[in-house]
């Protein structure tokens, strides 16, 4: 799937925030890429830095207190070094965002029509009528019935699922090439969730977009992802093809994440322990304090470098590195993965309806 030139290439992305209690590193040297037409999922627990990572791409987090370093190459341009005014041309026009909570993400004082056409009118020289026509068309496409009448309704007059559809319309109005969707379905009812996912899938084909999808729900991942990036405490633990990783999760963290899925025989306990303090991350592997295979080597130095354990599957774990013994991890970790690997792999239905 990977082309020579990815649509979006993120390298060594580091985002820090200065706070009263010192510097907080939310994203720490992350690499990933998204190709046209491809869906990449960033997964991880709450607070693992996935949202910050995606919002760093177009610099929509507040700077200061935030500070972003690294390279974000979009169609060959380094977004992070672009001046703000040019960056604004990219936002909404070429790269669009959808946020987690459609209720909050829309301004309650304006009609949905106004909010959809806003991006269009900023970026393109269109008349009110044209903008309206396009917005109504989009509303129709995302499945809002009686779109031309509802154009003038206010957000509070829509249901939650409808709002998210409106948000999608709002994102698509500028014909973006990359859609960044930050947990767009989390706040929604499961049946609605499935509809939205299907809608996104359809639209991706239609608009030929890359989608960077953030979620903590592996069921969703299984349903839509082409590739996934597993993040933990600001670091990438593992990334690669969704099937590969579901079949052979390399990193202990990935393994434990997958174990939480009912299909993998989850016991409901979740991963023991909590996320490390982002102000003062542990030495060595971030996951070491919670990792059952952690050794002395895991607790010193930096996060281990990524190792390509299989084709296009990168893992950041001491045990795969030089002098490490992958079998420590694999032997026990593979158990559930092996037995039910096909489930994860075939799954188009996923756990969406549990």
């Amino acid at each position, binding site marked *: 799937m990977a082309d020579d030139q990815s649509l979006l290439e993120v390298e060594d992305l580091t985002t820090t925030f200065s706070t009263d209690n010192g510097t907080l590193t939310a994203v720490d040297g992350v690499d990933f890429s998204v190709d046209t037409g491809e869906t990449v999922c960033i997964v991880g627990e709450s607070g693992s830095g996935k949202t910050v990572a995606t*919002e760093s791409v*177009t610099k*929509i987090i507040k700077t200061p207190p935030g500070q972003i370093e690294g390279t974000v190459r979009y169609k060959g341009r380094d977004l992070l070094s672009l001046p703000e005014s040019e960056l*604004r*041309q*990219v*936002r*909404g*026009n070429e790269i*669009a*965002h959808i*946020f*987690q*909570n459609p209720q*909050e*993400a*829309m*301004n*309650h*004082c*304006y*009609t949905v029509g106004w*909010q959809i056409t*806003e*991006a269009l009118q*900023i*970026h393109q020289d269109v008349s009110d009528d044209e903008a309206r026509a396009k917005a109504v068309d989009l509303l129709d496409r995302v499945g809002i019935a009686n779109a031309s009448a509802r154009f003038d309704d*206010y957000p*509070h007059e829509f249901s939650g699922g409808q709002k998210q559809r409106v*948000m999608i319309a*709002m994102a698509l109005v*500028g014909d973006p090439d990359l859609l960044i969707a930050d947990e767009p379905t989390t706040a929604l009812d499961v049946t609605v969730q499935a509809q939205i996912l299907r809608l996104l899938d359809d639209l991706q084909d239609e608009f030929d977009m890359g989608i960077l999808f953030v979620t903590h729900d592996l069921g969703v991942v299984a349903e839509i992802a082409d590739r996934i990036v597993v993040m933990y405490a600001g670091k990438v633990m593992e990334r690669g093809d969704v099937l590969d990783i579901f079949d052979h999760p390399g990193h202990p963290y990935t393994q434990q994440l997958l174990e939480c899925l009912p299909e993998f025989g989850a016991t409901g306990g979740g991963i023991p322990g909590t996320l490390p303090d982002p102000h003062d991350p542990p030495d060595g592997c971030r996951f070491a304090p919670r990792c059952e295979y952690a050794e002395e080597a895991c607790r010193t130095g930096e996060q281990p470098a990524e190792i390509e354990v299989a084709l296009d599957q990168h893992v950041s774990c001491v045990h795969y590195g030089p002098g490490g013994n992958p079998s420590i991890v694999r032997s026990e970790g593979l158990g559930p993965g092996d037995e039910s690997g096909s489930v994860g792999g075939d799954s188009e239905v996923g756990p969406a309806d549990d």
Partner: protein
Amino acid sequence: MGFGRYLSARVLWAGVVSLIIVTVTFLMLAAAPNPAVRQAATQAALQGGDPAAAAERARELRGLNEPLHVRYFDFIQSVYTLDWGWSVSRSQPVMEAVTQALYYTAQYSIPWTILTIILGPLVGVYSAANMYSWKDHAATGFAFFGYAIPNFFFGIILLLVFGVWLEWIPITYNTGVPVFSVENAIQLAIPVFVLVTGSIGAVMRVSRNESAEFQNADFMKTAKAKGVSPLRAYAYHVMRPTLVPLSTTLVGQLLALFLGASLLVEVVFAIPGLGRLTYEALIAQDTNLVLGTTLFFTFVAVIGNLIEDLVFTVLDPRISYDDR
């Protein structure tokens, strides 16, 4: 329920409220002794007549011997026919006294209101946009200063400094200068400044806190992701929702200040406006004028509240007319 019905319901209610307030005022004044009666008694005594009989005559003349409800209905009738009687302490019709005073009050309260309404939210949003920077602290400090310093205290000190020491402004208010003239602007500058510092603080604080909430709202992120420039984002996405909660407090606060602070400022700066008119009417026990000014302020307050309600309803699309 449509807007029209909502509007008429609100107006009707405003009428009821003003009627109640007017009634309370009437009863309060009815309970107080009428100075005119006393005056008549003294007069009679001076001429060797019978003061008690003269007092009785005076009461009759003013209809004070009528039962309370008769007087009340007469009074209500005159209120709504705008025939507010003769002001004894100023020797002019009450209506004329009120209009005359309003002329002077308007000269400083219109610029004051406009400045407050425009500057308050602007500075508030600006302050919120630069939250915790020195700009924010300076603006907040200014707001608190203006809010906390008693208007009359500030007024007399500024008058001392700019009027007596520096002689930049005249000390006695000159009613003779044209409304739109440099002299008028100079003599009104300090009163307007004092009032604006007093009122802007509250407006600013509300708009700062509210807009702080909105500028961190998800929809601001949405806007940014859409490529909206920061200026446009503040102008459209922050200012607009800030106006909603602001509208609920703004009118009330301005009204409270209108009565309280303006009276003191008028006393300090010797402006013959409504505040002083009211105060002097009370001191002189000029019943008609007291009622007249009370009525006026009541109408202003009721209309202000009405406007507040309407503005709020118009500004916030989430409010439907039958909620309120």
